[in-house]
């Protein structure tokens, strides 16, 4: 489930984003929005287990992840990613959810996410949160694609 866009001249054109959500419609909409931001490669996974496979195979530069999924939910997947982040590389991760209760937000902070996207995700919200999550990441470096 990978695709490359023809978008060029954008700051994210050499970067790969992984969308993890069990709802196909949510992934579809997110893909359209992320292509609008200029991501060069957009990967998708329908749950945390499939996301682990995508992460291992492609090492995405950004992960946008739902929380409620089976068999592996967003919290478990983020913990798994953080255990594999090493050598100064810390993959930016945004939770995409409609759960904004305090306990969920605090638990997300504890597992090491870089921000929230509240469903329904709009282009402006996405742009702000992606830019902030990727600050300090290698956005200005040319990553081999």
């Amino acid at each position, binding site marked *: 489930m990978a695709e490359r866009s023809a978008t060029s001249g954008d700051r994210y054109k050499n970067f790969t984003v992984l969308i993890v959500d*069990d*709802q*196909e*419609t*949510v992934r*579809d*909409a*997110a893909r*359209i*929005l992320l*292509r*609008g931001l200029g991501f060069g490669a957009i990967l998708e996974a329908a749950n945390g287990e499939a996301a682990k496979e995508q992460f291992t195979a492609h090492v995405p530069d950004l992960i946008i992840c739902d929380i*409620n999924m089976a068999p592996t939910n967003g919290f478990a997947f983020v913990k798994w990613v953080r255990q594999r982040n090493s050598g100064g590389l810390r993959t930016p991760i945004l939770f995409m959810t*409609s759960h*904004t209760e*305090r306990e969920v*937000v*605090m638990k*997300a*902070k504890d597992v090491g996410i870089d*921000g*929230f*996207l*509240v*469903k*329904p*995700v*709009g*282009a*402006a*919200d996405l742009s*702000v*949160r992606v*830019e*902030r999550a990727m600050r300090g990441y290698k956005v200005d470096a040319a990553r081999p694609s």
Partner: protein
Amino acid sequence: MRRALGILAGRRVLVVDADAARAGVVAATLAEVGAAIEIASDIHQALDLLEEADPAFTGALIAARLADADGVVLARAVRTSPLLYDLRLVILSAGVPPEGFDVACGWPATAASLAAAFLDPPPAKDTAPHEAAPVLDLSELESIAGGLTLELTAMLRRFADQAPKMAAEAMAAASAMDVTAAKGHAHALKGAAFSAGATRLGQAAKSFEAAAAKADWITASSINLPREASDLAEAIRGLPAPAS
């Protein structure tokens, strides 16, 4: 109503406005009633100040239009920031506060109206019936996708096929008085519907989810999710052919 000098003493407020002159006036007025003030002009500067502040800000007064986006975008970013959960958000605009804001304060503002905005309890929010929402609002997706593209149309058709089954599953769970399943199915339907621009179905699913969470089966059963899904499918079938 006259507010005493110093009534906001001990409170730290961020004024966010692209209009430097107005920001200066607002900041001076808030300072008159005792608040400690800082000023930002755009979303990123505001979030940097808010998330890194020590001591933390107690509130932010945000103009409707900022240098790089509108105030609602900043409010949404604040509401979902783990560090800013309890921040009082005031929009510098008359009328009903938009989503994410606690209160609205019209411009020109007085010391009394600004103090009230940071002290008085926020008014109860109106809950508009889902029937008031449009069946399909594709403005955002179309603007990003570059019109009603093949990809966007394919997404909508897939969702039109899936939505009736999702609606039926939620209704069946409500009939069985299964709180967990009814909430879960409605939650999934809500997320997918809003993502696809199916605003009315999304609102209906949101109301259904809230009713199911309280085991309020009378309210839940009064929300006709299958009919909303059917209306959506009809609206999608009625869309013009996509640009190839």
